[in-house]
């Protein structure tokens, strides 16, 4: 009987241990936001008036179609990351969009309504220079791609190559642009810097070179930056030194000299030191290039010029205007006159960046007046879509496509909540005042509840559409179970976001200017919201990757405001940060910053803090990793805030290199000290809070000789607690280090599969010192158990769930390249899983060992809401022990809650109130009736 029960328990736990989603929970507590990244090309579908399509190609190798009325995605195609998926050019003709990908490696044509691929061709290698649509007699039929040393022409409908030719003298001439007129010729323009321009004419039909000429231009160093093609085949160049424009008709065979036009003749002058820029419309055979063009004379001075019959005329001078709000006006290109009623005032966000790009879609309205829509991209990657008259139609925060790090902060209490909480913290001041206090607080609660009821009633009477659920910071407060939190997100572009975790609404945003593109960020919560009236405080350490110099940005995580606290300047590169549990008189945790001379800076550094640091200095240790020299070193703090070296571990860099080092999370709780075994003895866990997991990879990448190593090192003493090697394995290694276990994933290069390995550390049957763990006093080495499993899918990222008290069983969250997030019970990654099932292992609920890890679709916590390119998963405990908050970020952001042991501490949301109450009432009435019947019966019997 007993074994049956055990087996039943196992099967039950197998069935229900995993957190799965019920269909009616969709969208109840989870949300997803999809992003595209920084827009590099954007094209409006001008094919028809009613079209809502807006095609965009971004620096994240994403090609997408947006709904220009709402800003939502119609479809999105995410190519591979890195330069191989980089989008070089986007051309559009009719319903088709042609994209050049991967430095001219691939040419793809997309059908833009559905988002399906039409064709794809592989081009020859060679760095991409330019692409253009080529037409014959107003009909676009081909697309030409110019490479460094070759040109090829492809058919637009099938993608097949019509012809491909090598360019003449390609080793000395830099071919840079391509132009096609209406006359069946393709012009390729190249340059020999500071010598001459080369113009080659190709025949469209067979690629025959019709004409080749070179034009003297000793002053020119680059075609792309100083030249443009205007009107019908006129090459126009600008020279900074002589302050003049040069023109050259491309088609005439006899003219081999550029005509010079001095800018002084037009009463124009280039600002000193500024390189003038020419801007013209993109040449497109379907729509001949305009004869009007822009000349930029200084960073904010543009003029509109017209080229007509060999003469250049000034149409309009746009001199710089300095205001806080930008205005957008529509001007006629023919005359330079401003169209009436076309001004849009664009208000710049004070916390945002400056606008740097406009994408305009102008159209004729029904009454023949001109209307237009415009998409503005700012430095902080905000896309704003504006429509006349000055209405913001939608906004997208594309900075969120590249989240670097994030934290979750509890929301603050409201005044009443704080009052209630304060009651428990205070010292008792007599019985009667406490009773009165209690009563008054209960009265406040009752009042709040009544107000809530009234609001519900009031809202219910109004029609649903008029009830708006707008979320603002002011109305946000902590909910009953602390399930709603503030998500702080730091993006690579230097923009910070505060997002409500329940709805995904952006509550505040702050753009930090002057952030280097290769900065590293570290976000530290120094003071939580628990210390009312002190405001919560977060610190962002921004570090330049090249110089190592860092700076601190201190802010309030709830309102996003910069704190007025004075910040220490960091003159030396920062190597390591350490958040101590020591708090100053304002309840802020102390942050230690260690620079490259091993000097320590404390923040905040008040007298109180320094005093505390002096007292505790001998027990503050930290470690440094130098992966270039393969060195791990441990330091101890001295009283004068200098440091002393205690230990050093060198992992020779000739053999292997350190890839990653991870300690345990500071806010993690371990509920049980050990595991109860089948024979009722206890196997105690080795819970060393100072343990570091160091992952190394071999420098030899040969399939047979490569390996992945793991070292478990005590961060205080430098003792190597354990060492393991996986042969014939290579990275990328993803790993989680928690409690007494480390789980890591590597690629088995022999069998070409991903494998999980789990290491668990135990002290044994007896605990050496059960009250406190000290690294300095642990004579016995821990017992280490290890097991490996096959994981039948590739992996992007790995994280473990985290709960308030650590009672709930743990799950591993695995981000898959398909965009799903798998919640894998830790139970499957237990090195004690037996190969042969015994009575004891059954008693312990151990699952028999199986080499392959199961992947079940019910374990995908984000069902069909896939997260593209998931890069990180953040887990945070909530106020409920059963619930863990999860945020997955990558190109998209997905927030949800998981219940690794099901919702054992709250009523399930499908709890059958009706059944329970009907049974209760039924029983109640049954007892009443039977009581009555019994009475009658007794009475009858008495009468007998």
């Amino acid at each position, binding site marked *: 009987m007993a074994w049956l029960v055990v087996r039943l328990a196992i099967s039950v736990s197998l069935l229900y241990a995993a957190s799965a989603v*019920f269909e009616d929970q969709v969208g109840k507590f989870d949300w997803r936001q999809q992003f595209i990244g920084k827009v590099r090309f954007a094209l409006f579908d001008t094919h028809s008036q009613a079209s809502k399509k807006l095609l965009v190609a971004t620096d994240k190798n994403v090609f997408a179609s947006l709904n220009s009325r709402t800003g939502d995605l119609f479809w999105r195609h995410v190519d591979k990351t890195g330069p191989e998926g980089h989008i070089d050019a986007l051309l559009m003709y009719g319903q088709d969009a042609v994209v050049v990908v991967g430095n001219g490696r691939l040419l793809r044509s997309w059908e833009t309504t*559905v988002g399906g*691929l039409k064709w794809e061709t592989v081009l020859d*290698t060679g760095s991409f220079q330019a692409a253009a649509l080529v037409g014959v007699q107003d009909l676009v039929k081909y697309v030409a791609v110019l490479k460094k040393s070759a040109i090829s022409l492809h058919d637009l409908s099938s993608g097949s190559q019509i012809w491909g030719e090598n360019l003449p003298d390609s080793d000395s001439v830099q071919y840079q642009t391509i132009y096609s007129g209406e006359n069946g010729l393709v012009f390729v323009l190249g340059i020999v810097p500071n010598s001459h321009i080369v113009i080659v004419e190709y025949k469209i039909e067979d690629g025959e070179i019709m004409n080749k000429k070179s034009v003297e231009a000793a002053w020119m160093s680059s075609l792309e930056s100083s030249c443009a093609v205007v009107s019908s085949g006129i090459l126009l160049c600008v020279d900074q030194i002589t302050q003049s424009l040069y023109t050259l008709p491309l088609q005439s065979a006899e003219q081999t000299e550029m005509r010079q036009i001095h800018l002084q003749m037009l009463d124009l002058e280039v600002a000193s030191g500024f390189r003038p820029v020419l801007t013209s419309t993109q040449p497109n055979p379907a729509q001949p290039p305009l004869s009007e063009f822009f000349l930029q004379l200084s960073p904010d001075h543009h003029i509109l010029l017209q080229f007509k019959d060999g003469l250049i005329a000034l149409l309009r001078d746009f001199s710089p205007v300095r205001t806080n709000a930008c205005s957008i006006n529509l001007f006629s290109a023919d005359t330079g006159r401003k169209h009436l009623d076309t001004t849009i005032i664009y208000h710049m966000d004070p916390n945002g960046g400056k606008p740097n790009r406009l994408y305009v879609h102008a159209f004729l309205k029904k009454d023949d007046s001109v209307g237009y829509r415009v998409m503005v991209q700012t430095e902080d990657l905000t896309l704003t879509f504006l429509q006349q008259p000055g209405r913001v139609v939608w906004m997208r925060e594309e900075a969120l496509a590249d989240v670097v790090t994030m934290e979750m902060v509890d929301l603050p209490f409201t005044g009443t909540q704080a009052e209630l909480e304060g009651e428990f913290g205070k010292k008792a001041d007599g019985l009667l005042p406490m009773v009165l206090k209690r009563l008054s607080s209960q009265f406040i609660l009752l009042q709040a509840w009544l107000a809530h009821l009234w609001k519900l009633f009031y809202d219910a009477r109004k029609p649903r559409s008029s009830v708006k659920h707008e979320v603002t910071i002011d109305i946000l407060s902590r909910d009953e179970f602390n399930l709603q939190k503030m998500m702080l997100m730091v993006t690579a572009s230097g923009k910070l976001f505060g997002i409500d975790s329940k709805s995904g609404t952006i509550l505040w945003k702050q753009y930090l200017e002057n952030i280097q593109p290769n900065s590293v960020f570290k976000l530290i919560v120094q003071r939580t919201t628990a210390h009312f009236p002190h405001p919560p405080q977060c610190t962002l350490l921004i570090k330049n990757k090249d110089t190592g110099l860092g700076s601190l940005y201190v802010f309030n995580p709830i309102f996003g405001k910069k704190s007025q606290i004075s910040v220490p300047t960091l003159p030396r590169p920062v190597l390591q940060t350490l958040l101590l549990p020591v708090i100053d008189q304002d309840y802020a945790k102390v942050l230690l910053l260690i620079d490259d001379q091993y000097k320590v800076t404390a923040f905040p550094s008040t007298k109180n803090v320094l005093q505390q640091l002096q007292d505790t200095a001998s027990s503050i240790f930290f470690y440094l990793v130098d992966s270039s020299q393969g060195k791990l070193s441990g330091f101890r703090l001295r009283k004068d805030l200098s440091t002393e070296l205690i230990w050093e571990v060198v992992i020779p860099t000739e053999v292997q290199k350190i890839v990653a080092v991870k300690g345990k999370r500071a806010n993690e709780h371990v509920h049980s000290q050990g595991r109860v075994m089948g024979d009722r003895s206890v196997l105690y866990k080795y819970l060393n809070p100072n343990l570091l997991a160091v992952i190394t990879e071999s420098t030899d990448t040969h399939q047979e000789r490569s390996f992945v190593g793991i070292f478990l090192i005590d961060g205080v003493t430098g003792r190597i607690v354990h060492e393991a090697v996986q042969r014939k394995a290579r990275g990328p290694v993803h790993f989680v280090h928690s409690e007494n276990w480390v789980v890591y994933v590597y690629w088995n290069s022999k069998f070409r599969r991903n494998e999980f390995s789990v290491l668990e550390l135990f002290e044994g049957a007896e605990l050496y010192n059960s009250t406190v763990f000290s690294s300095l006093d642990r004579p016995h080495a821990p017992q280490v158990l290890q097991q490996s499993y*096959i994981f039948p899918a590739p992996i992007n990222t790995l994280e473990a769930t985290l709960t308030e008290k650590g009672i709930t069983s743990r799950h591993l969250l695995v981000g898959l390249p398909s965009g799903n997030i798998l919640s894998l019970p830790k139970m499957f990654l237990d090195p004690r899983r037996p190969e042969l099932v015994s009575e004891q292992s059954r008693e312990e609920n151990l699952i028999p060992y199986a080499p*392959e890890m199961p992947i079940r*679709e019910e374990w995908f916590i984000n069902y069909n809401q896939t997260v593209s390119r998931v890069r990180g998963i953040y887990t945070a405990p909530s106020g409920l022990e059963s619930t863990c908050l999860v945020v997955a970020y990558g190109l998209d952001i997905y927030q949800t809650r998981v219940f690794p042991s099901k919702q054992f501490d709250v009523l399930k949301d499908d709890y059958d109130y009706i*059944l329970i109450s009907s049974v209760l009432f039924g029983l109640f009435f049954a007892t009443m009736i039977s009581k009555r019947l019994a009475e009658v019966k007794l009475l009858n019997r008495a009468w007998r």
Partner: protein
Amino acid sequence: MCRLCVAALLLLAAASCSLDVKLHDDEDEDEDAMFQTPGGDVRVRVSGRALVPGVRAQDWIASARVLLDGDKHVGFLRDDGSFTVSDVPSGSYVLEISSPTYRFQPVRVDITTTGKMRARVVNYIKTSEVIRLPYPLQMRCIGLHSYFIPRETWGWSDFLMNPMVLMMVLPLLIILLLPKVFNPSDPEMRREMEQSMNMLNSNQELPDVSELMTKFFSSPKSHGKAGGGARGHRGGAPSARGGASRRKMKD
């Protein structure tokens, strides 16, 4: 007879001929899909076709991608469901079609250094096992993803078919109904019942279980130092049935 033989031979020859032709065709295709980079390593194009029966391609291709070994190489689907993944160097890859709605079986694609390709069933445990699949790939949808688990619903049938309920209800029925079916006070019936009991207990020599147990436990010598197991040995060689029953008792 002879003529028949000749005919068969001819047929065979024709078959082999057509086979040869087919092989050549295959190779031609491989050549066509192959590229040589300047570095000398081979780059091939993996192509195939994905099918979702009964669903228009437009409805699912925009959200689907073809992934080789995670997102090392990415391909997209055309509106007829066909796909190509370009620029793939030699090696062994697992090709899967990732769609948030439809499920496909992954396929392993091996590409040799000369650019030859084959497709086979993915087996992570026996990685060298080869069960060939047709190439160009034919990916067939094997159903919808089942992300959700159904809610436990409460129904009368579930309640009644519960083993606990059955265990309680059936004896209750027997207790209530049996006396009504036959009258135990009827002498004829009683005799019949006794007979059937004797039939069941046919071997009179075999010691009764309960008797045996009482004998063991009431034995005055065996209490004290000896454990239960030792006691069993001392009690002579109890029959298998006795042993089994003792185990049951312990439980």
